[in-house]
């Protein structure tokens, strides 16, 4: 390669860098799918009323839990750092079995638990935990909120009957934004 070609390739590199410098800090950091899902888990809490439950739940914290193999990586803790919900400190927790979920307000069920989903749904029956997952057909199989990734955007679907049976009340604003609202009960045993 000639010296000129070499110089022009360096110049091109610098140009690429310079042209974009204006845009470097203008835009927010990029959001991965799980950054957005983590934010949803928190935001859902603002649109849900939990029934009073006395001492059976940690009074100081609002717990958002992940059951199974954690897909969030650092995203969940980074999103929740310093966040509060109705005066309570928001904490992220990882749990291994549904039995550990009783302290949780919001429970995200990892795709690793797909085969166990029916058992998990049964174990959580009659508990006031908002269940969320991206497992396909989650809302149909007895879950409350299912993430749907359409193109480059993350939306969600709600099964209202399941949430109501658990004693949760979902605000109409939440239902309005949902891509779909189902009203079927949990599948018969």
């Amino acid at each position, binding site marked *: *390669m000639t010296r000129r*070609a*070499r110089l022009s*390739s*360096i110049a091109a*590199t*610098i140009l*690429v*860098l310079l042209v*974009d410098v204006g*845009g*470097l800090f*203008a*835009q*927010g*950091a*990029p*959001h*991965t*799918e799980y*950054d*957005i899902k983590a*934010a*949803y888990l*928190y*935001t859902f809490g603002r649109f849900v009323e939990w029934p009073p439950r006395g001492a059976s739940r940690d009074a100081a914290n609002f717990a958002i839990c992940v059951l*199974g*193999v*954690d*897909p969030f*990586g*650092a995203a969940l803790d*980074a*999103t929740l*750092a310093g*966040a509060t919900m109705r005066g309570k400190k928001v904490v992220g927790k990882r*749990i*291994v*079995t*549904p039995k550990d979920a009783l302290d949780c307000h919001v429970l995200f069920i*990892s*795709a*690793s638990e*797909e*085969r*166990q989903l*029916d*058992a*998990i749904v049964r174990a959580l029956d009659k508990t006031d935990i908002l269940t969320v997952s991206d497992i*396909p*057909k989650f809302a*149909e199989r007895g879950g409350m909120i299912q993430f749907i*990734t*359409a*193109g*480059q*955007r*993350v939306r969600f679907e709600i099964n209202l009957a399941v949430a109501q049976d658990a004693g949760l009340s979902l605000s109409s604003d*939440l239902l309005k*934004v949902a891509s779909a609202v189902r009203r079927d009960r949990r599948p018969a045993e």
Partner: protein
Amino acid sequence: MGTVLHAALVDLTAAVRLAVIAVTFLLAMLPAFALAGPPENDQAGAPRLTELSLEQLGDLEVTSVSKQPEEVWRTAVAVYVITQDDIRRSGATSIPEILRLAPGIEVARIDSDHWAVGVRGFGDQFSKSLLVMIDGRSLYTPLFAGMYWPAHDALIEDIDRVEVIRGPGGTIWGANAVNGVVNIITRSAAETPGMLMSIGSGNIDRGAAALRYGGGNGSSLNYRAYGKGVSRGPQFHSDGSRFDDWWMSQAGFRTDWQDAAGQSLTLQGDVSRGSHGQRVSITSHSPPAMIAADGALDASGVNLLARWQRDFTPTRGFRLQGYFDRTSWSAPNFGETRETFDIDFVHHQTLARRHSLTWGAGARQSPSRFIQTIPTLDFTPHRETGSIYSGFAQDEMLVRRDRLWLTVGSKLEHNNYTGIEMEPTARLLWIPRSGQTAWAAVTRAVRTPSRIERGIVSRSLTRAVAAVPVFLDLVGNPDFSAERMTGYEAGYRTLVAPQLYLDAAAFHNRHEGLSSFGLLSGATLESSPPPVHAVVRVSYVNGVSGSSDGFEISPDWRPRQWWQLKGSYSYVRFDLVTTPGSIDVNAVARYEGASPHHQVRLQTRVDLPRGTEIDGAYRYVSALPALLVAGYHTADARIGWRVSSRVDLSVSGQNLLQPHHAEFAHSPGPAVEISRSVYAALTWRPASGRP
């Protein structure tokens, strides 16, 4: 086109300067990190995600949708998923280098453009008995039963994940999925919108450039097109030669259409060209001589694939796929052109909630032509059409609700060499409780003969005895039959603690009829053509049997939210014997001693504020006594900086612990040693035009 690109890319000086610029730029920005506030408030005026409304969250565009490996957690297969994030943070720039990330797979770089890849042993130059696919298109070459790695590439940024399956997978994937299966899956066009430009340069990967544009309406119809070019320099040669420099360029497209009723249509294709430098031995008859010739294998390829998928309900659907693939190789000592037409149908349905039934059928026709370029290497016949017809059925039965599943099935396959082959499997999956999975499997797999074993006619000069030259003739064996393997496997996955996962798998494989050399006739004196010479004739035979055993353990630990540690230890041992009739006394040593018995890998990934990533990897590979290759330790490191949502910068170093080390043998000549390398890359995503 290739030559122009080549000329534009090849210049070591420019490469080094570019690297210096990138490093300087990174260093210059370091104080900015130091002065930066906490990571969550890094954009003045940009609200935190938790402050957004539901509508705003729903409108955010996701920069990377990554299929997570969580879903494989509950499968009765030893599978490891390498995600796009893993690939990016490894600094790997080619498919075989990416495979180093998976446990139980051995990747040895022979020279700059050749790799020997094995799964659970059996690493060899042709990566025999390993089935590799990109988006359902087989890259396996029937010419020598394996992979010719430098001819296959993809836009690395568009790879969604690489699934590495250890152990036999014949029931689903058919013949040649014996030791393992590698599935490279690219993102759908909906997941790659907008423009992406990336350039990189270093001392081995001298120059690389890629451009991709994705468009569409963001929901039902999307497309992308890309082009890339890479030029790589030679590795270290103790004799000062530089024959293994190479370049390749590739372009392609993908269109995805889907409707609301669960129907999707994909059309994709690629064209590629490359020139891969190599040194081969060429024997001439008169005068009797064997010379090492440096030259290039020029490869070109074109492929087109269409896939129609329809899910009537979540429990019932089908997939119909067809592809055409054409490859053309021209090397200093041979040439081949091959066309492949493949059609494949799979249907799945859940019956009575207890049975999940999958069945399918496929056909492949693969006409090929061998082009003889030197008198001492030929294949007979020159033209041959490979054909495969297959059908399979498998049922996953729920034995105990939420706890126990049994999968049984078989493939029935007819090929033009060995007729009908059966590849049955039985797999048991047990989930004793949440967070634990145990599985066991018995599977039979076959490797069907390749053209080399059936039809090669080659002559090489061994030595002269009392001034009489002795030639070794290797001729194909029309009776060479399939290599057969029965694999017994078991595995266990557990969440030891909420942030500590452990995956372990063990295997005992029984091999029958592995290929070795058999003697056809001892030294016979021949006078024609002159001069007087002796000829020893050998052929391929199914001359080695026995077993291999081993295990892999791979923990994955995240001690802090910003720090992840991954590791793996892989062990394999062999117990092989030469069957009566085979004279190949070295065959057993070759199988046992050409794969590392121990491999260790450790990776650390640290996320610092402001999108800075620091990654490191260490690996140990034990010796290959059959190839006189010593065991080695080495390490890779990478610093990545996500400057903004549009710009990524990274500098990575590979094989850092020594100036150069050998990983495999090279024939002819001394082993080529793999150099320490440094590579700087810049990725730029200009704002997408889409609303």
